[in-house]
Structures are given as structure tokens and as C-alpha cells.
């Protein structure tokens, strides 16, 4: 099969399936979910075809441009729709379709008791298609189509249970905050067109090195805003926690493995632009570092298992952003971490879903505890994910995170010291909050009502999930276990990405690598031990203790919602109210005034048409006399 055809099919098939499921509606209830799974599986097969097709070529030929059609031929601006197959997009294809298919399979069982399962799969397929367009696009314009498509799918899926008001509100919040980021992407495209005259990758990246620094900085910052919105980075991060309102497979696929990493993809893809502007690059690193710590701190305080995982996602994407901002030295590491994170985080989200499945949809970790006995497979797969994310030597996360920490220590001046320390510190905090999550859920004493221990809450009968759910978890946990090491062997992943990220000479960090590695491991062990002492060895209170100022702030997401409310939402409301008033009073007033004036005048004139012949005659006489008087006066 030719690569062109595969590239078109990989997008078209899930899109077709989504359309079919939505158009045919309830008639497809019986088999709709399997159609979704099959569509996603075909995409995954095609992704393998593309991957091996590219692997079969020499490193220089690994970029195929698939021209689809001339999309916007408008004078100076001419945009063609086309797909770009290169190592970077192929990597994403694999991640999206492979993890996506596993999650489809999982969702068949997870959503079994939902009347709207068919609609759920339609949206999932729509998401897959949109995400594939995003990563395959060969221009910013087509990328934007995918960008909006995933935003739509994310909105629909967060609000999937929109009969609950707070879920619908969460969906709306995610949508609106994403719009803020999208604005940045649109501005970036406008700036590209103004300065370069094209939005196609090939033209933009060819012209980027010659751009003036001002333009490069402007485009870079606008792109960064776009990336922040989609990837839940500071200061546009507030939506991700609420996005956990969606069904768990959605959280795993969209809000952990794929969509939220689109921002990192954008930054890496437009790396040339960022390299032309050190300011924009530094901003990316700063945003990444802030989010990294922010997410880690919030993750330490959340009691909702999904929200804790969401905070962790935010923090891990902070790592990726930070790496992407370091320049060519970090691109490959950012994508590497993105890939391994996609596996272990999706695996853990599915694990969380499995726990919820066995515990009557309970999400409060203070109501868990001691579950390892009851759900062995979930415990083991989750445990592997946990070991991967905390960077246990040998597992996926160890390789990828360690590389980023090393890269953060590379450079001159104050930057390596600050950013390197932040990444190191965050590695320790990550170990703490993930261990806290793991221990609170699976270890320690049971804190749920088993029928005779007299604890509050409904009686729980924790049980292992069906095979359809556990198999995807097992596959993902194998990825968490071995993917990192497999790709690290002989640096094969980095040489695979080299045509896109560029070749980089090895830089020596400011601290020797063994010291960094040792410090990372020590911090990890300290984090795990602290969590062990507090959440496994000693009893966890069922009602959350008041906690310190920091804990309380972290529980409320460090007041990000209050800040947004005070700085944007409320002034915005006032502005809109004023504008509404101005619209009704001034604009409508003028138009309506004109209308009612004409009506009033007509009303007056109507009085004269009283039907009395005599008054008509009198008026006529007066008129004639007047006319005569005027004519005569003019004569004289």
C-alpha cells in the first residue's frame, strides 16, 4: 500500500465511522461500539504501515508530503491541504492510534451500562480523526482544523454526562479556556502570513531563520499561548482538573495521552521559530517550569484520584514543555517523555477507572485503601505505571525523565542551575504524590464500608474488572515497563527523530551526569519513603484534616479559579453588561427612536383626516390663500 493512501485512510476511516454512528443514531446501538473499535484498529494498522514504510527508507527520505487539494486559493494567500509524513508525525500516529485503540476496547466494557455508548464511540472516533489531522497537517492552517476538532471532541466528551450541571459547566470551562489558546494560534498564523506570506510548514520553517527577532518573538509567544491553552500549561491550566468530569477512558485518551500533548507537538514542530527568538524560548522553559511545580504541588493535596492524576499530567507536560523550550537539545527528549508518559499515564487512568468500576464510581481516595487484595491485575498494572512515573530505574519514565533533567542542567549562566533544580525537585515531589496516590488506593487499611466494619458510606464489594478492561491495562503496563528502555537501546529513538529535531552534539551538563542521576534517585526514594510513612504505615484519616496553608491552597488548585474569576471573569461580565446596556440604550435607542418618531408624526397627521367635508374645504381654502399670498408676495 502506498503511503499516500495510508495517510488518507488513517484519517478518513475513523471520521467515516464517527459520521455513520452519529447519522444512523439509535439504529447502531447494538453494534456501534464495535464499529468504533474496528475503525480505530484499522487506523492503528495503517499507522504501522506508515511507520514501517518510513523505516524502510533512508533517513534523508523519511518525509513524504501528501498533497490533498488546493484548499484556500485567495490572492496572495494560498493554502493547500496536505499531509506530512515524517518521523515526528509517525511517532504521534503510533501513540494516538495504538493507545486510542486500547482505550476503545477498554471503553466497550467500561461504558457497558450507559445507554449512550454508541454516541460515546462516535465522539471517540471523531477525536481520533481530528487528532490525526492535527499531527499529519503540513500547514498551520490544517493543523488548526485538527486543533479545533480535538477541542470539539474534548468538549463533547467532558460533557458526555451533561445531564449533570457541573459536568456541563466543566465542559464549557474547558471549551472557553481552549478558545483563549486558539486565539494565540490564530494570531500566530496571522503574524506568519504578515511576515513570511505563508502558513505552510515548509515555507515558514525555511524562512524562519531569516526572520527579524521581533517577528520571531511575536510568533513564538502567540504559538506558546496556543500551546498553553491546549496543553493546560500555566496560566491556562485551570480547565484540566475539571475536565475529569468526563468518563475515565476520555481522561486517559484525551486528557493524559494525546490531546493535551498537542501543545508540546506544536512547540517541537515549530522549533525553528523558537530558535530564532531566545526570548520566546526562555518563556517556554519558564512556563514549563512553573507548570511542573504547580501541578506537582496540586497533585500532593488532591483526594480525588482522577484529579490527582490530572495534576500529575499537568506537571509531566510541564517537563515536556521545559524540554521543548531548551531547543534542539531537548526536542527529542520532550517527544520521548511524551511517548512514555502517554503509555504509563493512560495505563494509570485506566487503572483508576477500573478501581472506580469496582467501587461504585467512588473517586475519593480517602474512601479507598487496601484494594490490592481485591484487584490484583489493576494493582500490578497500576503499580508498573507508578514505578514508571516516579522514575524507578529501568522503567520507561526513568529514561525519559532523566534525559530531561540532564538536558535542563545544560547551558550557561543562571538558567541550568534554576531549571535543573526545578526539574530535580519536581522529580522528588512526583515520587511523593504518586506514591501517596498509590498507597492510599491500594495499601494501608481499608477505609470503605465492607458491610461489618461500621465505616460510613455505601457497602462496597470491590472486584476485578472484566478482561476487556484488564487486557488494555496489561498492554499499557508492558509499555510503561519496557518502552523507554527499548527505544533507548542504541539511542534508536533519537536517531529516528533526528531528521526533524536536527542533530545535536552532546553537551556536558554543569553537574556530572552520575551526580544528577544519583540525586534523582535519592530524591525519588525520599519521596516514596515520606509517602509510605504517612499513607501506608500510619492510618489515613477518612475526613481530610484541615492541613497547612499550602495544603488548603493546593486543594483549591492554588486559587487559580479565584484568580481567573477576579481578573477575567468578573471584569469580563461587567464589560459585557456595559456593552449590552450601550447597545440597548444608544444603538437600539437611535433606531427605535427614529421609528417611533415617524409613528408619532403619522399619528398627528392622521388626526387631520377626520372625514368632515367642511374641514377639508376650509383647509383647502386656507391652502389656496396661502399659496396665493406667497405667489403675490414673490411678485412684489
Amino acid at each position, binding site marked *: 500500500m502506498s503511503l499516500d493512501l495510508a495517510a488518507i485512510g488513517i484519517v478518513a476511516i475513523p471520521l467515516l465511522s464517527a459520521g455513520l454512528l452519529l447519522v444512523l443514531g439509535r439504529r447502531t446501538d447494538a453494534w456501534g461500539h464495535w464499529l468504533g473499535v474496528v475503525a480505530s484498529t484499522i487506523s492503528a494498522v495503517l499507522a504501522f504501515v506508515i511507520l514501517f514504510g518510513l523505516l524502510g527508507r533512508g533517513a534523508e527520505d523519511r518525509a513524504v508530503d501528501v498533497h490533498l487539494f488546493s484548499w484556500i486559493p485567495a490572492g496572495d494567500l494560498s493554502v493547500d491541504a496536505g499531509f506530512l509524513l515524517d518521523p515526528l508525525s509517525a511517532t504521534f500516529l503510533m501513540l494516538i492510534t495504538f493507545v486510542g485503540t486500547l482505550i476503545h476496547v477498554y471503553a466497550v466494557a467500561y461504558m457497558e451500562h450507559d445507554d449512550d455508548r454508541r454516541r460515546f464511540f462516535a465522539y471517540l472516533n471523531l477525536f481520533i480523526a481530528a487528532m490525526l489531522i492535527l499531527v499529519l497537517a503540513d500547514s498551520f492552517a490544517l493543523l488548526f482544523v485538527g486543533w479545533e476538532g480535538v477541542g470539539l471532541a474534548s468538549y463533547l466528551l467532558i460533557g458526555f454526562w451533561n445531564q449533570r450541571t457541573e459536568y456541563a459547566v466543566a465542559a464549557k470551562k474547558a471549551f472557553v479556556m481552549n478558545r483563549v489558546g486558539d486565539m494565540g494560534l490564530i494570531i500566530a498564523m496571522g503574524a506568519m502570513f504578515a511576515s513570511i506570506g505563508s502558513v505552510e510548514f515548509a515555507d515558514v520553517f525555511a524562512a524562519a531563520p531569516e526572520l527579524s527577532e521581533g517577528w520571531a518573538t511575536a510568533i513564538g509567544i502567540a504559538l506558546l499561548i496556543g500551546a498553553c491553552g491546549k496543553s493546560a500549561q500555566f496560566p491556562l491550566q485551570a480547565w484540566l482538573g475539571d475536565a475529569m468530569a468526563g468518563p475515565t477512558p476520555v481522561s486517559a485518551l484525551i486528557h493524559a495521552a494525546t490531546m493535551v500533548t498537542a501543545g508540546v507537538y506544536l512547540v517541537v514542530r515549530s522549533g525553528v521559530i523558537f530558535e530564532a527568538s531566545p526570548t520566546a524560548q526562555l518563556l517556554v522553559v519558564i512556563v514549563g517550569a512553573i507548570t511542573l511545580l504547580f501541578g506537582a504541588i496540586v497533585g500532593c493535596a488532591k483526594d480525588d484520584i482522577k484529579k490527582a492524576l490530572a495534576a500529575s499530567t499537568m506537571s509531566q507536560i510541564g517537563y515536556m514543555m521545559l524540554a521543548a523550550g531548551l531547543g534542539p537539545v531537548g526536542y527529542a527528549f520532550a517527544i520521548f517523555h511524551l511517548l512514555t508518559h502517554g503509555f504509563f499515564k493512560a495505563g494509570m487512568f485506566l487503572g483508576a477507572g477500573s478501581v472506580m468500576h469496582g467501587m461504585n464510581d467512588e473517586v475519593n481516595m480517602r474512601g479507598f485503601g487496601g484494594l490490592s487484595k481485591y484487584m490484583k491485575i489493576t494493582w500490578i498494572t497500576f503499580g508498573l505505571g507508578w514505578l514508571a512515573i516516579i522514575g524507578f530505574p529501568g522503567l520507561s519514565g526513568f529514561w525519559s525523565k532523566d534525559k530531561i533533567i540532564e538536558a535542563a542542567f545544560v547551558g550557561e549562566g543562571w538558567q541550568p542551575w534554576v531549571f535543573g533544580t526545578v526539574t530535580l525537585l519536581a522529580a522528588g515531589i512526583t515520587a511523593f504524590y504518586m506514591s501517596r496516590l498509590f498507597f492510599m488506593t491500594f495499601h494501608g487499611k481499608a477505609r470503605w464500608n465492607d458491610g461489618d466494619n461500621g465505616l460510613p458510606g455505601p457497602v462496597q464489594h470491590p472486584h476485578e474488572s472484566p478482561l476487556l478492561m484488564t487486557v488494555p491495562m496489561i498492554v499499557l503496563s508492558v509499555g510503561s515497563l519496557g518502552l523507554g528502555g527499548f527505544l533507548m537501546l542504541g539511542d534508536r529513538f533519537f536517531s529516528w527523530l533526528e531528521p526533524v529535531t536536527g542533530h545535536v552534539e552532546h553537551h556536558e551538563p554543569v553537574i556530572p551526569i552520575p551526580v544528577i542521576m544519583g540525586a534523582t534517585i535519592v530524591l525519588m526514594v525520599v519521596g516514596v519513603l515520606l509517602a509510605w510513612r504517612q499513607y501506608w504505615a500510619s492510618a489515613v484519616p477518612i475526613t481530610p484534616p484541615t492541613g497547612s496553608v499550602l495544603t488548603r491552597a493546593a486543594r483549591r488548585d492554588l486559587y487559580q479559579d479565584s484568580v481567573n474569576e477576579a481578573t477575567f471573569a468578573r471584569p469580563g461580565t461587567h464589560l459585557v453588561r456595559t456593552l449590552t446596556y450601550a447597545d440597548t440604550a444608544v444603538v437600539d435607542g437611535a433606531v427605535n427612536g427614529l421609528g417611533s418618531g415617524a409613528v408619532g408624526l403619522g399619528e398627528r397627521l*392622521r388626526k387631520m*383626516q*377626520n*372625514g*368632515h*367635508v*367642511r374641514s377639508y*374645504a*376650509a383647509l383647502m*381654502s386656507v391652502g389656496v390663500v396661502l399659496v396665493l399670498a406667497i405667489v403675490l408676495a414673490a411678485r412684489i
Partner: protein
Amino acid sequence: MSILNYLVLSGILFSIGAVAVIVRRNAIVAFMGVELMLNAANLTLVTFARMHGDLTGQVIAFFVMVVAAAEVVIGLAIIVSIFRTRGSASLDDASLLKS
């Protein structure tokens, strides 16, 4: 005799006719007012014809008389028919055209 006398008489007759049309409520009287105005106009026409020694004015006066006669026929017929249907010859009662 000065021509002015004729014109003044004509003006007086016209004014009387006009006032009759405007002030009187009775349709017949108002109608007579109209006739009076027409005849005032005739008088003017004839006066100027005489003054200019031109017969055109007199011819026009005949035309006016003919038109007035025709008008009287139709007008009276309308008044009679209104009186028959409504039992009144008052102009103010016939105000169906008001909005």
C-alpha cells in the same frame, strides 16, 4: 364704471360662497355656496373678457355654466340618495372617510 367694481363684487360673492360651504352644515346650502363661487368666477371671466375685448373669457364662462349644471345634477342626486338612506342632509354626518 370701473372694472374694479366688478372684481370687488365677484370677490364678495366668492367669499360668501366659500363661507357658506365652510360654515353651513346643510348639504343643500353648502351646495348653493359652491354655485355662488362658480358664478363669482364667471363674473370675473366675463369682466376680463369685456376689458380685453376678447370673447374667449365669455366662452369659458359658458363652459363653466355647463359644467355647473352637470355638477348640480350629480350633486343633488347624491344628496337626495344620502338623505334617503340616512335621513339627514347634514355634511357632518357623512364622515365615513375618516380613519
